[in-house]
């Protein structure tokens, strides 16, 4: 490939090792000025390592980084790096206990001498206005929601004067409308001549906002092409190195007389949802869709007992559950995958075996003792069933990649062959192949008679559902049978529907 104009950013022949693992092997990327360039690859392909090298947080073992043809500044000169490249990291770099204004000017509150807080706030407001961020400069950063926090990070990143910005999985924690607003903003920035590198697991997003795409696989650069020249199937092929079809959901016969394994009646929680009735039968997958503010996650969390509803009844497998009692729900035969796996899903320092068998620990031994052998045996089966990539059942879950950690969480939910399963956003931040095994495991459980409630922001996930309940402003507004079109569902989610 010949580059006619000087690349805005170029990484050449980058190799980076961490101990025995090679994170990047002679990889590189060329980004032309003004384009929005996607970087895609499965978990562990080396994307994050490239980000930390491009932002000057890590030094490559071999290779070099060029900004507009100039060699990169020394690693110690943080300011020089920040004038060249801005980054919105996957992990928030906002300090929750400080105000938005101070976060924007962290460690540069003043050139010298005491800080003039009034002037700092004024500068912060000006900066927020300049990028159209509707956030109060005086509020605590910890009180912002994910979208606002991200906008603050973008504004801060750009305030150093960088014309190149890296967005590392910015959409992972946003809901549909927020993603749309983010894309709108990205298009604006592009019109202003800002060059961007965009990382996402959602390939459709790549086609929406990017002009070219680079694929990494197993620490190597595979291909760089304009998005128009790389249709979806080929992109997936480049990422996985093999032909893969989009996930085919299995056809199921729903027995109308099958037992109701999870039901809610008249369930309500102030400011979240009201008067919700639903019933999930054995062997059925029911989807729950809606925008981020529809109350769908709050509802699902109430069903499993993580949130206490104000009123209404929940039954699991025929047993009435006292509101807000997780233990009782689990005992009655419920399994669940929480929304935030890092928070509620697993204990990072404990092994896969321990994490996955937590709910069935009492079955693995007598008198409160746990048999290590039996636990290991169970965990090994789970690892095989869900195709978890690991060195063995003793590996701490904290060391696994996102997709594999999520599989452990799902394995735990399925450990006791639950009658009912509630799954919240199972495929968030998970790559294509892991997504398929996760959805496959959910479908397998259904085949064994489990009734599943699948809450997801991801339309693809909802394809496996036998019917989808759509929520809008706290109410279930529609019950859509299998075979829906994307437009119909989105319209219902946005409340445009008649």
């Amino acid at each position, binding site marked *: 490939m010949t580059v006619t104009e000087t690349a805005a950013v170029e990484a050449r022949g980058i190799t980076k090792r961490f101990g025995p693992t090679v994170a990047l092997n002679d990889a590189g990327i060329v980004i032309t000025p003004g384009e929005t360039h996607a970087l895609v690859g499965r978990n562990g392909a080396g994307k994050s390592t490239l980000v930390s090298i491009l932002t000057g*947080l890590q030094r490559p073992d071999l290779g070099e980084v060029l900004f507009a043809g100039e060699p990169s500044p020394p690693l110690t000169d*943080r*300011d020089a790096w*920040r004038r060249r490249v801005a980054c919105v*990291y996957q*992990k*928030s*770099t*906002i*300090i*929750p*206990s*400080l105000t938005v204004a*101070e976060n924007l000017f*962290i*460690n*540069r*509150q*003043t050139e010298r001498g*005491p*800080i003039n*807080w009034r002037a700092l706030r004024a500068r912060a407001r000006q900066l927020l206005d300049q990028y159209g961020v509707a956030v*109060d400069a*005086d*509020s*605590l950063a910890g*009180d*912002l*929601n994910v979208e606002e926090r991200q906008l603050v990070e973008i504004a801060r990143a750009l305030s150093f004067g960088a014309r190149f910005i890296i967005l590392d999985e910015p959409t992972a924690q946003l809901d549909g*409308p*927020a993603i*749309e*607003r983010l894309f709108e903003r990205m298009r604006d920035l592009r019109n202003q001549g800002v060059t961007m590198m965009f990382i996402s697991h959602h390939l459709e997003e790549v086609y929406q906002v990017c002009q070219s795409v680079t694929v990494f696989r197993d620490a190597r650069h595979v291909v760089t092409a304009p998005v128009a020249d790389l249709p979806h199937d080929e992109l997936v092929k480049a990422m996985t190195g093999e032909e893969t079809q989009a996930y085919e959901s299995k056809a199921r016969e729903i027995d109308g007389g099958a037992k109701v394994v999870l039901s809610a009646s008249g369930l309500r929680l102030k*400011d*979240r949802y009201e008067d919700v009735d639903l019933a999930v039968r054995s062997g059925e997958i029911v989807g729950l869709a809606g*925008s*981020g*503010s*529809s*109350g769908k996650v709050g509802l699902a969390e109430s069903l499993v007992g993580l949130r206490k509803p104000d009123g209404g009844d929940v039954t699991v497998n025929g047993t009435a559950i006292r509101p807000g009692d997780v233990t009782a729900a689990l005992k009655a035969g419920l399994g669940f995958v929480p929304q935030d796996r890092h928070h509620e899903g697993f204990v990072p320092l404990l092994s896969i075996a321990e994490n996955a068998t937590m709910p069935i620990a009492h079955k693995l031994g007598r008198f409160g003792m746990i048999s290590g052998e039996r636990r290991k045996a169970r965990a090994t089966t789970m690892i095989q069933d869900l195709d978890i990539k690991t060195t063995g059942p003793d590996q701490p879950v904290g060391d696994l990649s996102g997709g594999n950690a999520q599989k452990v969480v799902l394995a735990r939910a399925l450990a006791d062959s639950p009658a009912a399963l509630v799954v919240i956003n199972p495929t968030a931040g998970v790559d294509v192949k892991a997504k398929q095994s996760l959805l496959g495991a959910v479908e397998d459980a259904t085949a064994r008679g489990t009734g599943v409630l699948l809450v997801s922001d991801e339309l693809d996930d909802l394809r496996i559902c036998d019917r989808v309940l759509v929520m809008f*402003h*706290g109410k279930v507004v529609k019950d859509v049978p299998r075979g829906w079109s994307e437009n119909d569902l989105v319209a219902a989610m*946005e409340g445009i529907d008649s």
Partner: protein
Amino acid sequence: MTESAVPDSLAVRSRGTGLKLGRFRDLTLVPVIILLLIVGSFADPVFMTTGNLTNVLQQQSALALVVLAEALVLIAGKFDLSLESTVGLAPALAVMLVIPTSAGGFGLGVPVALAIPLCLLIGAAVGAFNGFLILRFQLSAFIVTLAMLIVVRGLQTGITGGKSLFALPPSFLYLGSATWLGIPAAIWITAVLFAAGIVVLRFFRTGRALYAIGGNADAARAAGIRVERVTWVVFVISGTLAAVAGMLETGRLGGISANQGDGWIFMVFAAAVIGGVSMDGGKGTILGALTGVLVIGLVENILTLKGVPGEWRNLVYGAIILVALMISRLAGGKAQD
């Protein structure tokens, strides 16, 4: 359309009022202090006299400096339990280097004028060693400083043979016992150091860096703050402050007992935490910590004036700290952490 009034986003929007309260979060203990002053003046006529209140301040000045030191460490997201032992060791070792063997010293003939600088240096050295173990060896601050609490106290008992030191050079006692402009020098010194702490942590980048480090160390590092270096300096400064506290306490009491500072750390944490300094780091102010010290001092004074028997002291003391915590929690409106 998507910006319409929706439940989830409504929940977050109560911030306007939250912030105004937040500005006064430093002062949530003020009602407690006023309450204590009222209770105190009813409890005993002596309480509201200048003499008594000055006395409270002087007695608390050494403890207050350790609270200042601990607040700095806590805000930076770390822990230092060993400060209470430094309060004893720093003056004891410094004095023993300058006094003759007959008075219980090493008899090294080090000039007496060096006693105070040596005392501060020893405090700084203990802090530096803590920092070394915690930052270079990446050990848990809690366990390292717990061990250091024992080690430093043990060192003092070892070198003094468990005995108190009484024959001290007058120059060393001066700052803890002198009176300037009618107010004990110890109060002046403490006030100046607190004022410096308040200003630096509010108005200077270095001070704000402590909040950034305690709030999110990775983010602080990404913003170009030298996290390890700043944290290390904080440990050194707090060790030094503990040494100053030890010196003032020595001057006030006229001697150094083997258990000077022993058990202080509980009061120090109580004062810092009821004053709004978070044990998780990144939150709290020096002014808040100061109000915490005042609450502790007033409670102690009232208990003494009322002649509460020694064996019941701890119970009443602990209970009052719990009540102060609850009041500041209600006044602050935010969950304690």
